């Protein structure tokens, strides 16, 4: 009986050690650290193996895109406010539909613009990293839920 228990204990210990090694071999502490900090540029740097030159170029692209982003944001907000005003004033159905359609059109333009921007960013990476980056980012852009703000708690969890 004592040999049975002893052997089982040795195997259990071996399993715990193997599990730990398996975890350590597959985990990414650098990624976990940048996520904890919420530093997106550092994330691009470490997770997509960017050189300093590539990172500077990505920063420049993001900065140049910031103006476009700001403009699109303003236009969407204005169109949303206009539709809300129409709703409050019980405006006619055709005007409301036109306002909704305008917002939808702006969002579509915006989606195209941001997708083009991230493709430019991906082009700066190695082909493999670029593909991985686009696989992560593009579905999120396409599946954007315009009825709710993103879960910001998620972005700073852990």
């Amino acid at each position, binding site marked *: 009986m004592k*040999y049975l228990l*002893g*052997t089982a204990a040795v*195997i*259990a210990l*071996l*399993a*715990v050690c*193997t*599990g*730990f*090694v*398996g*975890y*350590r*071999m*597959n*985990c*990414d502490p650098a*990624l*976990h650290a*940048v*996520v904890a900090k*919420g530093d*997106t540029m550092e*994330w691009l740097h470490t*997770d997509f193996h960017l050189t300093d030159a590539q990172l500077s170029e990505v920063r420049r692209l993001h900065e140049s*895109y910031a103006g*476009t*982003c*700001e*403009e*699109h*944001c303003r236009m*969407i*907000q204005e169109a*949303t406010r206009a539709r809300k005003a129409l709703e409050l004033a019980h405006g006619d159905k055709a005007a409301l539909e036109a306002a909704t359609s305008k917002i939808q059109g702006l*969002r579509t333009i*915006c*989606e195209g*613009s*941001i997708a083009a*921007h*991230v493709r430019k960013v991906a082009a700066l990476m190695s082909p493999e990293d670029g593909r991985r980056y686009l696989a*992560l*980012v593009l579905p*999120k*852009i396409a599946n*954007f839920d*315009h009825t*709710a*703000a*993103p*879960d*910001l708690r*998620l*972005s*700073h*969890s*852990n």
Partner: protein
Amino acid sequence: MNTTHDPLSETLHGWRVTPPPNPNFRQDVWSRIAKQSGVTWPTYLRTHMAAWSMAAVVVVGAAGFTGGALAKSQARADREAIVVTYLVDLDPRVQALLKP
């Protein structure tokens, strides 16, 4: 009431076992006990090698796989979280929702 005589019952009733006495009985018992307690761990393992090897391969393999899967799942969750943060800064539609 059944009053018939059953010859088998009568035979069994009269049956007596008289085994020949074994003068070494006590000594044999202690000898077997001593033999059992003399089994070492390596001997035990050699005897049960197949079963324990199988158990070790399955349990250790499952533990390694679980550890790896756990780490990958954590990395996936980390990426999901940072992508949201990234797009909050980048996507005007998100900005339009967040700005007053």
